[in-house]
């Protein structure tokens, strides 16, 4: 329907987002209701209820294996690439259940960009990496592609570093730069939400700082959901924090509250490093 057409109505979606954010900052992007997920017999997500707001950074924390990545991959249905996965419950993205039979995954994924733990640029030039998304969605015009590439690289705060080497292989830059190229690649499809799964865990402190600053910048235009093992990072950059444990959401609240005054003992134990 009209949804696919709006993606490249340059800037229109971004404008829309801005208008909403001034009127009501609490509009929800993702409303997860009673979500359960199984990998075969392994019950990995249990009765998850999470209401994720627009133009906020939502951090997901919790010990290894508690289901953070699984939840993130459920939000853009990447988790369905694992053949044994079964789900129940619903996730409303902008009011529509993403598990609906007629909801196309490709459509969902052009609205929800993803950045992975390990920088994973394609073995192509930097330019072709960024242009990949627009191209698969049908943009052929060289001038428009040039513009998207520049805009996305600027958006990911990497333009100045790579503008003279756009046609070099994306693997010829440092790991931290590669990760920002991957962020730029996600921005190039002009998404509404950006999912990040431990985006800085493979990076040095300086690159990490750059990406954290970038996240702050990006939340003006996008809603960001970020998985992190780094408590300070969650505290520094997020507005809300969800604490996962054994596939359940133990606590979900304002980041300040979670870190200064958690209501659940297990949350407190985890953030103070007593287990995990």
């Amino acid at each position, binding site marked *: 329907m009209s949804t696919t057409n709006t993606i490249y109505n340059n800037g229109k979606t971004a404008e829309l987002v801005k208008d909403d954010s001034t009127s009501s900052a609490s509009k929800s992007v993702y409303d997860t209701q009673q979500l359960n997920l199984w990998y075969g017999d392994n019950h990995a997500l249990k009765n998850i209820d999470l209401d994720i707001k627009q133009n906020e950074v939502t951090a997901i924390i919790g010990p290894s294996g508690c289901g953070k990545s699984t939840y993130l991959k459920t939000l*853009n249905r*990447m988790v369905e*690439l694992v*053949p044994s996965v079964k789900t129940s419950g619903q996730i409303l993205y902008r009011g529509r259940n993403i598990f609906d039979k007629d909801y196309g*995954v*490709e*459509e*969902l*994924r*052009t609205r929800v*960009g*993803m950045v*992975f733990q*390990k920088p*994973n*640029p*394609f*073995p192509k030039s930097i330019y072709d990496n960024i242009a*990949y*998304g627009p191209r*698969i*969605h049908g943009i052929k015009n060289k001038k428009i592609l040039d513009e998207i590439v520049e805009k996305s690289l600027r958006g990911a705060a990497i333009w100045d570093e790579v503008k003279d080497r756009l046609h070099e*292989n994306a*693997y010829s830059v440092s790991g931290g730069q590669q990760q920002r190229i*991957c962020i730029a*690649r*996600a921005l190039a*499809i002009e998404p509404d939400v950006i999912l990040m799964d431990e985006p800085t865990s493979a990076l040095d402190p300086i690159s990490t700082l750059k990406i954290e600053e970038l996240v702050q910048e990006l939340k003006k235009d996008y809603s960001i959901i970020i998985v992190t093992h780094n408590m300070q990072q969650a505290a520094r950059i997020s507005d809300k924090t969800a604490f996962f444990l054994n596939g359940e959401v133990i606590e979900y609240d304002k980041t300040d509250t979670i870190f200064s005054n958690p209501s659940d003992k297990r949350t407190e134990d985890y953030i103070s490093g007593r287990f995990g």
Partner: protein
Amino acid sequence: MRYIEHDNVVRRMNGRNLVNKLFKSIFLLATLSALLALVILLYQIVSQGVNHLSFDFLVNYASRFPEQAGIKAALVGSIWLMLVVAPTSIILGVGSAIYLEEYAGKNRITTFIQMNISNLAGVPSVVFGLLGLTIFVRALALGNSVLAAGFTMSLLILPVIIVASQEAIRSVPGELRDASYGMGATKWQTIVKIILPAAIPGILTGSILALSRAIGETAPLIVVGIPVIIQFLPKGVMDTFTALPMQIYDWSSRPQPEFQQVAAAGIIVLMVVLLLMNSVAVIIRNKFEKRY
């Protein structure tokens, strides 16, 4: 208490180094003996065949008289054969590999198919010849044409191409697939734009090595009924033809000693063709050199 006694370690070091050196020499010896056999073989063939090798040899048809015998029909025939085998086997092989790796689920049937493909790679080539004779020559009435022989050879090398392509596809990192799907690419777009470009060096190297096997195979051609003495070139895929290994086999089984030289010259030509094909494989591998 300590588990590692450092004094002991130092004392035993000499013995360990000796064993290390010993195995190094054994492996070196193994490599050298293989190399030696190859050198002797090459020397024998080249010294026998080089006298007969000339431009005339390449442009003459086969003959009863050894000094006039040429390899034209066989050389051109082998090229025709490759023109059928290469597209047929690569298209079918890569297609099957893509299906098995990217589309087929992991269930009993696909495991069974997979197992059989690996087994087929070990079936003797005569058996493929018989299959070709029954299906292509007789049932489909293609006769002993380039097409029938080409299809038979394609079947023969198909398992090798499938397995090589599967391995190449499997070695494409999963993160690249994730990145592509994560941006809303369909499976087909991901295959065409990400997986195949990354897998192509492996696929082509495997395919060319399989093709060089096909160009040297004799048994299936004999079974399919490809003639040896031919005084014309095929004009199309429905014509009959002869191929390099057939011609060489025929020459080497003749009683006159002169024909042994002709056979050796033929082997040199075949080896040059193989060498050319393998160099193409190496060039492709280097050209597409990838980084992850």
